């Protein structure tokens, strides 16, 4: 690959470093560099190379921008591993949708972790939105079932957003509990949730792929939200994930405040990568 750049080894190493440090992952990085070499036999300098890279990655990510498909009565399910930003993202989505004229209600589906429900309750109060909650230790399936049953019959709400407790994809019990939650939603709603959004932490590396792998076995993921891209992490793993799973990316979390949610745009994303 050193042959592709007249500058030689230094430019090649520089770009490899940039892509690896973005968490794109070694095998995907080498695929990318190989593809660039095939299309561009003579690259004069680093600036030209990044230009080709951006063009190539824009192609690779073609079709990755997704949006919420909501009708006048929809359910959004939020899930993912521990600490990625689910509860905060539920609150951000509530505000985002309220601004768009939706009437939002929330479900405190984390009945396990200390202050899991209380945390979302604080957000609900700040946003002045309805929240369905039950006591700590209640069965999450039951809380969700009751919430949907009520939501179905209330004209005043258009969108129900369900927060769930963090769960490692490697924890069989919690993954089974998640499958049960989906069955409960099917029963109460008559179908699977309209938006089934996996939350990924932008600071995480290659393990993110394992998360998508396992969760996609128990639910048809139709959207990804990646949080914490307001730090120094680049979230390059999204490139590897989209290449492999073709799941649309709908939002990026860019901070801890309620307004720190942006619609995923390939150009903005790639701009930050470089």
């Amino acid at each position, binding site marked *: 690959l050193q042959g592709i750049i007249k500058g030689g080894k230094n430019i090649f190493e520089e770009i490899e470093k940039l892509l690896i440090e973005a*968490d794109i992952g070694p095998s995907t990085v080498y695929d990318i560099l190989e593809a660039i070499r095939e299309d561009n036999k003579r690259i004069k300098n680093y600036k030209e190379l990044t230009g080709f890279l951006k063009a190539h990655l824009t192609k690779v990510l073609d079709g990755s921008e997704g949006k919420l498909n909501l009708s006048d009565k929809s359910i959004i399910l939020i899930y993912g*591993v521990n*600490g990625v930003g689910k509860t905060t993202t539920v609150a951000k989505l509530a505000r985002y949708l309220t601004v768009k004229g939706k009437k939002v209600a929330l479900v405190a589906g984390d009945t396990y972790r200390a202050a899991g429900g*209380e945390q979302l309750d604080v957000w609900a109060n700040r946003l002045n939105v309805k929240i369905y909650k039950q006591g700590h230790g209640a069965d999450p399936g039951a809380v969700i079932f009751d919430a949907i049953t009520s939501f179905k019959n209330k004209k005043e709400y258009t969108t129900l957003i369900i927060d769930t407790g963090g769960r490692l994809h490697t924890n069989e019990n919690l993954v089974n509990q998640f499958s049960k939650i989906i069955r409960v939603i099917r029963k109460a709603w008559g179908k699977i949730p309209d938006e089934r959004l996996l939350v990924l932490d932008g600071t995480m590396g290659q393990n993110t792929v394992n998360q998508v792998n396992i969760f996609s076995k128990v639910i048809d993921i139709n959207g990804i939200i990646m949080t914490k891209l*307001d730090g120094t992490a680049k979230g390059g793993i999204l490139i590897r994930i989209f290449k492999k799973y073709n799941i649309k990316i709908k939002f990026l979390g860019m901070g801890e405040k309620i307004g720190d949610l942006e619609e995923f745009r390939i150009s903005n994303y790639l701009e930050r990568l470089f």
Partner: protein
Amino acid sequence: NLKDKISSVLSQLKGKRLNKDYVEKVLREMRISLLEADVHYKVASEFINLVKEKTTGEKILGSLTPYQQIVDIVYQEFVKIMGEKPVLLEPQKGRLNIMEIVGLQGSGKTTQVAKLSNFYKKQGYKVLVTSLDVYRPAAIDQLRILANNNDLDFYYEESKKPIKMAKKAKDYAVKNNYDILIFDTAGRLHIDKEMMKEVKVVKDTVKADEIILVVDSMVGQDAANIAKEFNDKLNITGSILTKLDSDTRGGAALSVRFISEAPILFIGKGEKIDDIEQFYPDRMAQRILG
């Protein structure tokens, strides 16, 4: 053990006549494996280059047992970075030891604070925990609930000022003869100047004995940035790697250890109060090597 693991990773070198190019090729593959394990780019390069220098000289390659010598060198280099034995943090009884727990958002600090308190309480220390997280909704409740559920001493005084809270907590701990006071702090970005200043001021105000960085073991390349910034600003004395009950290879451990030069003290391997254990460097090294 780690040496067996290294032997198997380098097994392509076994029973062959070795030359510099071939050894370098196998080491390149090891470097890629480290990158796939989320070891930071610079850390992986530096590690492999160090090993390359020591293993491709004529002294090694021309010897009777080049493969074994290369395995030994790689093992030594790993042990040099990760440490050879677990490092036990044993606070002195009879005086107040203050631990300040810091790290990025969602890394597991609050949970680990409760686990640490329980860990030391079982060893006979009198431990007090308190939260300085005035930002995250229900953060104080989270620690209070964990403390109540596990019979741990918890201190809190209503306030929006972390520095003031820290002083009051210390006074209370001294007055009531605690051996250990553990501060849970809010998650923060290493590039947030104001927030990094806040934990520095807390450290200087209470004269913290330990600054412990909590890192999510699933973190990727960013581990290096996090470790560097927290170490530069606070001089961390130790770290805890959480969520090792996942299937992450945990290369962040190598990066954090390499850059901060502070020992990894504990690992978190679950959400329950007992899910904390001593960090074993050779076990982690094996895990990273895949």
